[in-house]
């Protein structure tokens, strides 16, 4: 390596290799980057060696050739290699180290996406849990209380929507059947929103009572519900009473 000075003037790490890819000459910059080695393959990561020998040995090297290098500090770095066979039958090589910025950004994006995915999954779990709780609330919002003398009291809590009736219907009908109740008192004192569709469902529930030979009494209707429930009475043998207490007293269900 006598006239290394010529390569030293190059702005990038440069090498001169013989046909066996041994380093005949290299620039100061190259030495600083990869150390003083005798074979070009030695400064490459093992997974890059086959690739390098295959492409560099060919007559018409492709450009640029991407290879993984091992630095003086034993760290891997990616670089593009530009090569050209000289008239002296040596292979001239210029190495352009690639910054790791792109790869860093890729991995940052990836970790961001992973986080989004995890959040997405957590949200999904939460949604399922909420759904479960809501179902529980629905089931609990229509308890059947046996008052004796074949009377059952069902206070309805919260909003009355079709889904709630769907959930409680089976439970209510079962209870009525099992206890052999003859009168069901639906108390709406604790009911909040009443959707029109909910009112329709309520009507169909009442109709089912009738089919089962059970008399329905509705108590505790608030003014805002009255309008919507108005049509409930048509065609149904329903009894509306303003307060629960009146019903209980009239039927001697109060102690």
């Amino acid at each position, binding site marked *: 390596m006598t006239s290394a000075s010529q390569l030293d003037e190059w702005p990038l790490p440069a090498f001169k290799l013989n046909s066996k890819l041994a380093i005949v000459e290299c620039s100061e910059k190259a030495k600083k980057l990869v150390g003083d080695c005798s074979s070009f393959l030695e400064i490459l990561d*093992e*997974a890059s060696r*086959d*690739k390098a020998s295959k*492409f560099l040995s060919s007559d018409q090297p*492709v450009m640029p*050739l*991407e290879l*993984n290098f091992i630095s003086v500090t034993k760290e891997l770095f*990616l670089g593009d290699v530009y090569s050209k066979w000289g008239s002296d039958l040596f292979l001239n090589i210029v190495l352009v180290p690639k910054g790791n910025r*792109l*790869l860093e950004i*890729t*991995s940052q*994006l*990836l970790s961001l*996406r*992973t986080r989004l*995915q995890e959040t997405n*999954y957590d949200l*999904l779990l939460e949604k399922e849990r909420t759904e479960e709780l809501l179902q529980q609330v629905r089931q609990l919002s229509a308890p059947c209380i046996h008052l004796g003398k074949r009377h059952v009291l069902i206070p309805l809590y919260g909003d009355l929507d079709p889904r709630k009736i769907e959930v409680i219907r089976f439970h209510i009908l079962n209870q009525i059947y099992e206890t052999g109740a003859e009168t069901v008192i639906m108390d709406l004192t604790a009911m909040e929103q009443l959707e029109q569709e909910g009112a329709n469902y309520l009507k169909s529930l009442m109709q089912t009572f009738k089919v089962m030979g059970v008399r329905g009494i509705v108590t505790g209707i608030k003014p805002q519900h009255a309008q919507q429930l108005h049509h409930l009475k048509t065609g149904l043998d329903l009894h509306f009473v303003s307060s629960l207490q009146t019903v209980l007293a009239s039927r001697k269900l109060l102690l």
Partner: protein
Amino acid sequence: MTSKSQELANLFLAGNEEQALQLVQTYLENHTKDELYQLLLTPAMYWIGELWEKNIITVADEHLATAICDFVVSVTEVRRPVQNSLKKKVMVLGPEGEDHYIGLKMVASLFKENGWEVQYLGPNLPLDAAIDSAKRWEPDVVALSAALAYRLPVLKKYAEAFIALDFKPSVVLGGRAVSLANWSASDTEGIIIVKELDQLKSWIHTGKESANDFSISIG
């Protein structure tokens, strides 16, 4: 390499996650998850590795393809824990220096689907940290994978360190490097070699290593 794998590889390289996912979901309509991993994703990713060796794509392309593949694997993964009274535990990781992790994810997913409790520690994990986690969690199995052949000695070192632990976990070795390696008979107890996911699956189901002409030479 089927044309479908190739199509998928191209979608990965193009960064087209939407179409890649669509292709995979259509495939899953009449194939199992194992088939997806083994017959579609693995060949696609191996092909992408070969494209780099042929200097057709760059490492940046590979990273993009990996990210898309990762996305697809994650989306198709089972979320719900499978009910299983056995509750065996497996720790999945790649040794230090090994950055290839798609295989690890597929292995983790396969275990999960079979009702195992999985701790996915990811790739490039230093041995000390891996041993520490294993001591704390005491998994029944440690699954290791390497993609590049020259990582095999490191893989062996890790395997030996794990089977030496008091609670004696089994060690499963896999990955492209293992499937290419010519590890011949001379079995070490507690070490299982899987050359492909099919073999892992049959090991999970039967607890027996597939009948291979190779077994294991370690040390």
